[in-house]
């Protein structure tokens, strides 16, 4: 299983003790950027309905991205798991991750509840 799902790797990443995580994410972004560029440049069509692939831009602004990002980062450093790897850890049989998934769902729900009161 990819080591990016490991709590140890996340801890190490924040300690800048190894290039591993930066290598994985960096190469994903590098090749992903090439693919994304080609999709746009060559106007590649969707494989199912043959409509051109359109990538929606993220909404403008900075408050929600910075504040939300900081909150996410705090949780990431504690749980050592982001929403993708959580599911692979579950499949790998690390059962306590189910608690993390449940509380992350609860956190999402809580955001939905107080959304209108937050700066975006």
């Amino acid at each position, binding site marked *: *299983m990819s080591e990016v799902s490991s709590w140890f790797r996340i801890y190490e990443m924040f300690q800048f*003790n190894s290039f591993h995580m930066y290598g994985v994410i960096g190469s994903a972004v590098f090749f992903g950027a090439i693919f994304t560029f080609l*999709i746009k440049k060559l106007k590649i069509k*969707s494989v199912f309905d043959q409509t051109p692939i359109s990538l929606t831009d*993220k909404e403008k602004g*900075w408050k929600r991205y910075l504040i939300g990002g900081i909150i*996410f980062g705090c*949780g990431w450093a504690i749980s050592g798991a*982001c929403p993708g790897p959580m599911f692979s850890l579950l499949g790998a049989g690390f059962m306590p991750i189910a608690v993390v998934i449940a509380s992350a769902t609860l956190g*999402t729900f809580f955001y939905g509840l107080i959304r209108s009161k937050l700066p975006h």
Partner: protein
Amino acid sequence: MIAIVLFLLLWTGKTFGMSSNLRTLCSMMGAGKKASFFQFDWKAQGWNLVVSLGVVIGGFIASNFIASSNAVAISTETVDQLVALGFEDAGKSFAPKLLFSNNAFSDPYVLLLLILGGFLVGFGARYAGGCTSGHAISGLTNFQLPSFIAVIGFFIGGLFVNHFIIPFLF
């Protein structure tokens, strides 16, 4: 590998973002009655739940049939730090037993940490409009400034907790 997944999802007219599934789960469980944020056609997001189910199966296959050694080869510096914090299996296992062995279920303090970490991840991801896949991968590859800001936020929060809070937690 991640880039190929990104390409396949874009090619099929989808996007790569895992934390959206948590919103979909809320809607499935009827959260739309409590907040309009969850009133959307969650069935249209079914494909993404299938992706996460695929990730669960992938995790199962990888840990049972592929991985020959589950130890994560973190640097000796990291091992020393973690052993000093009480993570005796640092460098010898995939995930720390302290947090992810079944003993965690009977330790209220560990449960509290898992709940707190998960809650912040879920809340923060939705507030920021994405997580590591939606912002750091999908957003950065499309040169989105908001995603760059979000990733900086991930690191401000992560570095702060990692350096100043974790030493007190364990």
